[in-house]
């Protein structure tokens, strides 16, 4: 069964004023348990609005959001439980840090869940380990850490709630390449350990191509497509048309195809391209 589902989800900002704007327009999709989903779309395409519906921060103007098959707005008083099941990490999450120590900040979410001290301690240590924060950092003030470390503290703060679905809005924005790779690597490791569903919003096609099982593309408030990574990048032309990039390697192979060398449309990582080319070369030698 789909863990997260939307049915004809629509959201309009400031209805009835000159600023009225439909940010999400009749979006229906199903996200299966354990998937790693990449979310792409232009600034203003509605992807941030969409993900804020998944944990009930925004209430749909019309349509439904189902978690485990149940409408999350069926009981308004239970909306907090939804937020513990669907963890949302905002853009630049380090700006939400406020506690005196890293430990306390990561423990904020679990504490709100009403867990006991021992359980909170276990979770803080486990997630700190998952995200690559060493033990001695836990007693430091989060404000003296580096940008990348702060970011990881903030992500750990949501992970520590052990949500069944973890949503990250551009977790690597504004970081240097080393910090970016580190965060993606730790998220991947967390995914392997917990097998939880993860959604990552990203503008970097290379990043998305490297981790996503499926890709969700938003364009002009509408769902453009939601499919397996191979199938989405196979539609490279359409994706370029709505103003988004495809991975560089996909573009290279598109150009090769135009010039008469067709290697198929499923090339989107450098590793895969390398293996493919080596195989083709070998075949030629045999002949």
């Amino acid at each position: 069964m789909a863990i997260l589902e939307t049915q004809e989800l629509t959201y309009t900002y400031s209805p009835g004023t000159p600023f009225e704007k439909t940010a999400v327009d009749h979006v229906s999709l199903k996200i299966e348990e354990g998937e790693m989903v990449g979310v792409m779309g232009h600034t203003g395409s509605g992807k941030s609005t969409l993900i804020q519906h998944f944990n009930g921060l925004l209430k749909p103007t019309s349509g439904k959001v189902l978690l485990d098959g149940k409408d999350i707005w069926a009981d308004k008083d239970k909306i907090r439980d939804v937020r513990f099941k669907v963890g949302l990490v905002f853009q630049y999450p380090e700006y939400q840090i406020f506690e005196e120590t890293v430990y306390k900040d990561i423990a904020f979410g679990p504490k709100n869940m009403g867990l006991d001290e021992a359980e909170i301690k276990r979770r803080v240590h486990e997630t700190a380990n998952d995200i690559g924060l060493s033990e001695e950092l836990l007693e430091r003030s989060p404000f003296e850490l580096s940008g990348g470390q702060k970011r990881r503290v903030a992500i750990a703060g949501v992970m520590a709630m052990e949500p069944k679905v973890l949503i990250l809005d551009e977790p690597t924005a504004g970081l240097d390449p080393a910090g970016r790779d580190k965060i993606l690597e730790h998220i991947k490791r967390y995914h392997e350990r917990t097998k939880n569903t993860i959604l990552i919003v990203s503008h970097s096609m290379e990043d998305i191509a490297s981790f996503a099982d499926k890709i969700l593309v938003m364009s002009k408030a509408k769902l453009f497509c939601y499919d397996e990574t191979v199938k989405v990048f196979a539609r490279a032309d359409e994706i370029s048309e709505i103003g988004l990039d495809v991975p560089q390697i996909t573009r290279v192979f598109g150009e090769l195809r135009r010039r008469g060398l067709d290697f198929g449309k499923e090339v989107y990582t450098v590793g895969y391209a390398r293996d493919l080319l080596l195989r083709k070369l070998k075949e030629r030698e045999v002949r």
Partner: protein
Amino acid sequence: MLRDITIGQYFPGDSVIHKLDPRFKIVITILYIVMLFSGGNYLCLAVGAVFTIGAILLSKIPLKMFVKSVKPLFIFLMITAVINLFFMSRGNVLLHWKFIKITDEGVHTSVFMVIRIVLLIMGSSLLTYTTSPITLTDAIERLLSPLRKIKFPVHELAMMMSIALRFIPTLIEETDKIMSAQKARGAEIDTGSFTTRAKNLISILVPLFISAFRRADELATAMECRCYHGGEGRTRLRQLKSAPRDYIALGVTVLFLAGVIVLGRLF
């Protein structure tokens, strides 16, 4: 919740009201306030209401926005009404029950005060709705410029005001974002008992202050980089020029004010 705050919100447009010289608009608004408070009877208030509605219609801003501007002050209005209702001892007693005494004078005053305040809010919202904060502070600077003679830091004051106004929406947006982020971590902000809500306020205020200081720092650096050094010898991109319509508007306002004063004396 926070998105409902409309103080200082500007609605771009090109109506007559939008085009008025901001200096005249400020003076007109001051005269308008005098008008509302100089008339002591309903007839004066009716004249004030006609003036307000006329100006609102001319501005072409939906009436809904003005209703919205009054909404946050609803509780304040209610308190004003109730206090006037119960504590006015003059006039004929309409109802007397234990220590509660309601007089016709009390009913009259509370209704009168509520209408007066609503008009006041609507009228002054019209000023901020139709004038961008930047031009508004420009105008204030110009209106206060005579004070420079007595070494009053007019330009600095205007600059501080425009920066403060400029950052209200930014800070509201920021607060909204931080609130969402903490709510996503299960903080009870709109719900829960008073103590948990108060405690959770810290989780919003600390990041908000940190970001405000960061922004202030960045802004100071950016101003420094552009060699900003105060008002001495500074010229402006937009010169304020008055047009005939400004004098007409001022004239109309003065007439209304005179009318209200006369009506207040006659009846």
